[in-house]
């Protein structure tokens, strides 16, 4: 892989759509997802050049982990930059269904990072608990627990 630009281009071509969708779902904002995906691929490229990927496990799982971590870092930095309410990507909904969607997205954004990540990977990406555990480098039990907590929090806060 070292120095092989075409191999990396093939990786980007084969994974960028799924990883971008994940970035959009993690950030809730296309502009931010653009930055997340670009930074994630730069980190992956550097790691591959430095031999930072040990070749164990699936490459895509490793890339998912990088995107998740990059998205979480971006969110932390954004919060540090501004404590004001961030309304990017939250266009005022015109219809009731859109209003519910907007409400859900706002609630999900308020969840603790680990719960939000698990919810996005499970409910939106359709990953199994085992796959999520691999991406997040934690146990399946921890994944299930975070999911239960995330759902409980959503139920409690839903239109209260």
């Amino acid at each position: 892989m070292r120095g092989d630009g075409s191999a990396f281009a093939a990786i980007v071509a084969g994974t960028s759509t799924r990883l971008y969708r994940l970035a959009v779902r993690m950030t809730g904002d296309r502009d931010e997802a653009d930055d997340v995906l670009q930074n994630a691929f730069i980190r992956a490229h550097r790691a591959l050049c430095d031999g930072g990927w040990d070749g164990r496990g699936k490459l895509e799982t490793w890339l998912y982990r990088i995107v998740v971590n990059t998205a979480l870092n971006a969110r932390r930095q954004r919060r540090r930059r501004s404590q004001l309410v961030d309304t990017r990507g939250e266009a005022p909904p015109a219809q009731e269904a859109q209003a519910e969607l907007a409400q859900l997205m706002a609630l999900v954004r308020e969840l603790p990072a680990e719960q939000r990540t698990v919810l996005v990977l499970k409910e939106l990406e359709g990953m199994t608990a085992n796959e999520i555990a691999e991406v997040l480098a934690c146990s399946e039990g921890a994944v299930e627990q975070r999911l239960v907590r995330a759902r409980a929090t959503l139920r409690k806060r839903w239109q209260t």
Partner: protein
Amino acid sequence: MSGPDRIEEALGAWRAATDDEAPSAALLERIARATAEAPTPSPAQTLAVAVWRLGRPALAGFAVAAALLLFAATRSIDRLADDAATAIEVLAP
């Protein structure tokens, strides 16, 4: 409709709304440029990283082996001293 059902419905709507998201051609171009321009490590850097990676476990193993040898040597000296003391006691008139 109950709260949980509405949450499920909203999650489904969110999934559907984002299913077709794809990176723009401009973004892919930016990524290609950024990774092509990224400095690749020199052979010396690559070698240093490889040596460090290979050497790290060996270094740890060496440290453990040295500690064990030191421990064994200390025990041997203690035992030698004990044996000498016993011999002196036995041989002494």
